[in-house]
């Protein structure tokens, strides 16, 4: 059976090439979209998931790292009470306040004759952390220093690469100038990247006197984070909410990807339909072109099942070839695109490749439906006509 399918395909090289190319483009599109989603998912969740913060305490209404509407006191009776509780709790290894604020940061490009020129606008996530605990601070320092003191900042290496910011450069944020003293990794949220400053300096610059965004809490090994979170919320249920690291990372991913996912599903669905249509049209036109041959096979004693298998086999061969070509191209061009467009973060997982292969096979079988209907209607007596 494979012999006839193969020979038929080889005698239609142009049709085969067009079909395989169409399917390859579909597979490429699907692979890149899925890989982009995985890449974003990984990037967006990395910072929270890999931080040493076990429990994130926020004010009610805030549930993730990026939607930083949280405001917690660091002064006043409530703050004193909370600080005393955290300081004295045997399960708390360390804690510190953490400021997180999305903001525009400007690069100061030139200062000539006392005048200054603001350069490129940088979309950044401005973080004020305590260098003594390091909680919520840079994950991995790759160049320069990892502790920021007054007037100093550490930038994420993705930001550095995207905007050409280097150690020693001056950035303006919240009306103040900050000198870059280090680069870190793990703070790339795709659309925005982290900039780390000292908590107290950030607090002053942002006018958040007596307030912070989160309490970042690190627990003693073996402590159940969920139980601790419940315990701390019980003390002031109307004023705070607490999340474990996994919950907070999940919420952060959901904030970024929650809106993207439905769009992605629609585009993936469209790509699937396009691929199926390409395969279906090719198999259908090929079936029409070879109608007489199918009629001959029917006449000489081949049952419908055999002929259906021929069609499905042809469809599967074409789509598998298209799948192979599409995946190879995806692996080849993904790093190149990421190099030119840093936001195009892709992560091609073998599980996804297997899933796409499965979808391709479904595409192949679905594409064979109409051609099979045509064959079913073929009258073998027709081969006696001229």
């Amino acid at each position: 059976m494979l012999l006839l399918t193969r020979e038929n395909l080889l005698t239609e090289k142009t049709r085969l090439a067009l079909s395989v190319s169409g399917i390859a483009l579909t597979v490429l599109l699907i692979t890149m979209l899925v890989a982009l989603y995985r890449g974003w998912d990984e990037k967006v969740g990395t910072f929270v998931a890999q931080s040493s913060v076990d429990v994130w305490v926020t004010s009610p209404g805030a549930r993730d790292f990026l939607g930083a509407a949280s405001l917690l006191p660091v002064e006043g009776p409530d703050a004193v009470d909370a600080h005393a509780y955290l300081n004295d709790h045997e399960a708390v290894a360390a804690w510190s306040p953490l400021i997180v604020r999305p903001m525009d940061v400007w690069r100061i490009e030139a200062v000539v004759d006392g005048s200054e020129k603001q350069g490129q606008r940088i979309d950044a996530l401005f973080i004020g952390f305590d260098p003594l605990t390091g909680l919520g601070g840079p994950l991995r320092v790759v160049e320069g220093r990892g502790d920021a003191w007054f007037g100093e900042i550490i930038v994420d290496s993705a930001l550095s690469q995207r905007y050409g910011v280097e150690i020693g450069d001056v950035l303006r944020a919240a009306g103040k100038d900050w000198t870059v003293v280090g680069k870190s990794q793990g703070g790339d949220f795709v659309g925005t990247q982290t900039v780390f400053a000292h908590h107290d300096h950030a607090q002053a610059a942002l006018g958040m006197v007596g307030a912070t965004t989160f309490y970042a809490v690190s627990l003693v090994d073996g402590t159940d984070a969920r139980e601790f979170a419940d315990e701390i919320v019980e003390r002031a249920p109307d004023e705070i909410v607490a999340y474990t690291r996994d919950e907070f990372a999940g919420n952060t991913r959901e904030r970024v990807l929650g809106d993207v996912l439905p769009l992605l599903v629609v585009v993936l669905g469209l790509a699937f339909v396009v691929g199926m249509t390409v395969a279906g049209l090719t198999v259908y036109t090929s079936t029409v072109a070879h109608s007489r041959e199918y009629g001959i096979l029917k006449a000489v004693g081949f049952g419908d099942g055999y002929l259906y298998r021929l069609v499905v086999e042809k469809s599967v061969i074409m789509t598998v070839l298209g799948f192979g070509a599409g995946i190879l191209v995806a692996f080849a061009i993904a790093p190149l695109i990421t190099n030119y467009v840093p936001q195009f973060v892709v992560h091609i997982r073998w599980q996804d490749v297997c899933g796409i292969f499965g979808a391709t096979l479904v595409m192949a079988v679905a594409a064979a439906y109409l051609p099979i209907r045509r064959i079913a209607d073929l009258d073998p007596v027709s081969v006696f006509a001229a």
Partner: protein
Amino acid sequence: MTQPSQPVLVMEKVSKVFDETGDPVHALDSVDFNVNAGEVCLLMGPSGSGKTTLLTIAGALQRPTAGRVFIDGTEVTAVDQSDLPAIRKSKVGFIFQHFNLIPALTALDNVALVMSGGLKERRGRALELIESLGLGHRARTRPRHLSGGEKQRVAIARALANDPVLILADEPVSNLDAARLGEVLTQLRRLAYDLGKAVVIISHDHRVQEFATRTLWLEDGRFQDGPHILGN
């Protein structure tokens, strides 16, 4: 092999009415027709007389409106439609006017295609068959590079691929010149005489009669005394 004189094809009171436009056409009208093993039966008649309809009903390609058809003892008019392909494949060999070979396959694979078993084994048997018809040197040639006579011999080889008891040939020599005509008809007669097949040939060509053991004239869906039959 079916024994000579044993009936291979039996058609009893077979009628076929086409009524697709509301104006019934009686293609066959209560026809009785038997062909024995070792016999070459030639069917002649004017266009539209029902020859091809009879052939397709005899080959279990379509069902009659009325009557019964037996092939090698099996009543094909009584079996399920889905079982007919298997009966055709094992008991009937078709030879068509336009050869109807698969263009993408070599002569060898056209024959091997309809056989059962592994590809290597099928090709071996197909080659033997093609060689027996004097076409061994053209076995790996595609149909478009074969002459009309060669194509028809490949078609004969394909018809014989599963060692059927009944060979049905529809105008097998109409596209051949005189030399090739004799060559192909000699092969068909050999199938009946040497291999004991029952052979039915439809043809308009009177030269075919000398290769047939019996000639029948079909007109208006019935067997009649043909005006041009030279002898039976």
